[in-house]
């Protein structure tokens, strides 16, 4: 996030983390990262509403559906990781999850806490170094789908995860590039997950961290970017796709209950709308059940005990996993 990106992508982490965490309190905490995400917090509080699912759940489910079985997916933490894991636990069991920490073919049973979560390494087909994951695997064109988030997106799906305001005296310093620019450049296609608000969907990015379609047709080729670029922008309101001729984002789907006016109001430029706007199928009970189970799956132990660490207790463990409770955690600063 960063969007992985979160991991991959950067702000994505911020934005995505907020999305990832269902409760209002935690959302509140993470949102501070990006002003862009601030508005989203309010949205999150409308949780469930009358629909039986939240806008973020709709967004995550829509993203998961976009992933076909067998897809090799570069995953960032937060919403992209949730979507990818939901897909792998439902219709796409042979999907290959690649995290920028170097874990290839990770098969986590619970949602990872970060792109470098130990469970990713423990369940991976292969663990490689960070230089290798970017050079041999991403740069060489071995990744089908990259997921990105952002604090800002423009009409050509370029992304900002660097600063809001002036670069030298930013009003908000965001995490930065992370893996995002090369994910945007080199994956065969890119799916962007971002909440749709006037603060995220902007006329002019404060900083172009990752390239979607640049200033329009021909720019990706001119820059030597080998992937196709963004194919889907999935928001909490609907789904946008680039127009093949102009490379400008066009609204093609609205989520159930979302009006066209709401989507227009949430967009900082004159939103292009498809002739036929369809309605995204609502999350099915199965999808919601799997998604919520994933989120509720037990994570690794994390205690606040002040007992001293006992590394030797773990020496007989060959899997790298320490059973819950065997090693008291000492909270060191």
């Amino acid at each position, binding site marked *: 996030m960063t969007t992985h990106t979160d991991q991959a992508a950067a702000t994505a982490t911020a934005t995505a983390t907020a999305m990832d965490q269902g409760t209002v309190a935690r959302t509140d905490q993470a949102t501070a990262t990006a002003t862009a995400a601030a508005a989203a917090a309010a949205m999150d509080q409308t949780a469930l509403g009358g629909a039986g699912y939240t806008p973020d759940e709709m967004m995550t489910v829509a993203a998961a559906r976009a992933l076909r079985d067998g897809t090799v997916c570069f995953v960032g933490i937060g919403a992209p990781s949730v979507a990818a894991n939901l897909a792998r636990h439902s219709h796409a069991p042979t999907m290959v999850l690649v995290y920028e*920490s170097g874990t290839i073919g990770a098969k986590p049973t619970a949602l990872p806490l970060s792109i470098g979560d130990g469970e990713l390494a*423990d369940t991976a087909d292969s663990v490689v170094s960070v230089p290798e994951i970017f050079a041999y695997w991403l740069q060489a064109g071995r990744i089908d789908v990259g997921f990105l988030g952002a604090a800002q997106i423009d009409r050509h799906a370029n992304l900002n995860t660097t600063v809001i305001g002036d670069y030298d005296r930013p009003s908000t*310093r965001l995490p930065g590039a992370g893996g995002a620019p090369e994910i945007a450049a080199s994956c065969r296609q890119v799916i962007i997950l971002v909440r749709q608000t006037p603060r995220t969907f902007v006329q002019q990015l404060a900083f172009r*961290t990752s390239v979607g379609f640049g200033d329009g047709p021909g720019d990706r080729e001119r820059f030597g970017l080998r992937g196709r670029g963004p194919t889907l922008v999935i928001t909490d309101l609907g789904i946008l796709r680039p127009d093949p001729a102009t490379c400008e984002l066009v609204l093609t789907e609205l989520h159930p209950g979302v009006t066209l006016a709401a989507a227009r109001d949430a967009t900082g430029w004159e939103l292009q709308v498809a002739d036929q706007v369809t309605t995204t199928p609502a999350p099915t009970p199965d999808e919601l059940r799997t998604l919520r189970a994933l989120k509720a799956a037990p994570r690794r132990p994390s205690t606040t005990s002040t007992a001293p660490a006992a590394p030797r207790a773990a020496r007989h463990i060959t899997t790298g996993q320490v059973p819950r409770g065997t090693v008291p*955690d000492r909270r060191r*600063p």
Partner: protein
Amino acid sequence: MSAAITSLQEAVADLVSDGDCVALEGFTHLIPMAAGHEIIRQQRRDLALVRLTPDLVYDQMIGMGCASRLVFSWGGNPGVGSLHRFRDAIEHGWPAPLAVEEHSHAGLANRYVAGASGLPFAVLRAYRGTDLVGRTASIATVTCPFTGEELAAVPAIRPDVAVIHAQQADRQGNVQMWGITGVQKEAVLAAQRSLVTVEEVVDTLELRPGGVVLPSWVVNRVAVVPGGARPSYASGYYHRDNDFYETWDTISRDRDRFTQWMADHVLAASPVASTP
């Protein structure tokens, strides 16, 4: 030459000087937190800090005034949100102005690779069309002499000191780490000097699948610091203390609370003893 096994206090005093370029590496796993704390306790100043993911360790070092410059690629609290001390330094110059030089992960990883390889620069497909070009002086282009293709070039990075945390060393100072090993090998080989903190010293290193072994003769100092990566994790030893990452968001948000917390938990803490 082989690595001397010393206390962390001695190792930092011997290797890290004011004004040095210092890289503490560890990609969400095996983050050398205890070494960062020792650098804070020894009040090093004017450091140029290099790290892909500044994380909590650099948030603390920046907030305590150790750094005047930061070379990085992603500055967030992984899985949680912002690094507030990093942001405060950039947005408001507190406690001191912080010059930043930012890359993507691929770019900075390649800078280490070039440093470790004894090359002046690295070549990669990156950055084109982004505003990082022109903003970060250490991003340039190079034309392939064989195909004529234009590619990104980034200069080698050669830190004065690399600091990493590993699971084990043997009594000769050979080091092994396993699990996610990030860019630590490249950082150590790129640096002029290196310090490795370890969970424990063993009689014989038992080679692990996917493990990275750094022979003793490329390491200057080894210090035994059990739990030295907390609150990050050390595969096979302990898990990430995720509650702390979330708590850090609250502690670090406020300057006074941060300063008090560091005084209580880092400055007042006794240096970790070495018991090789």
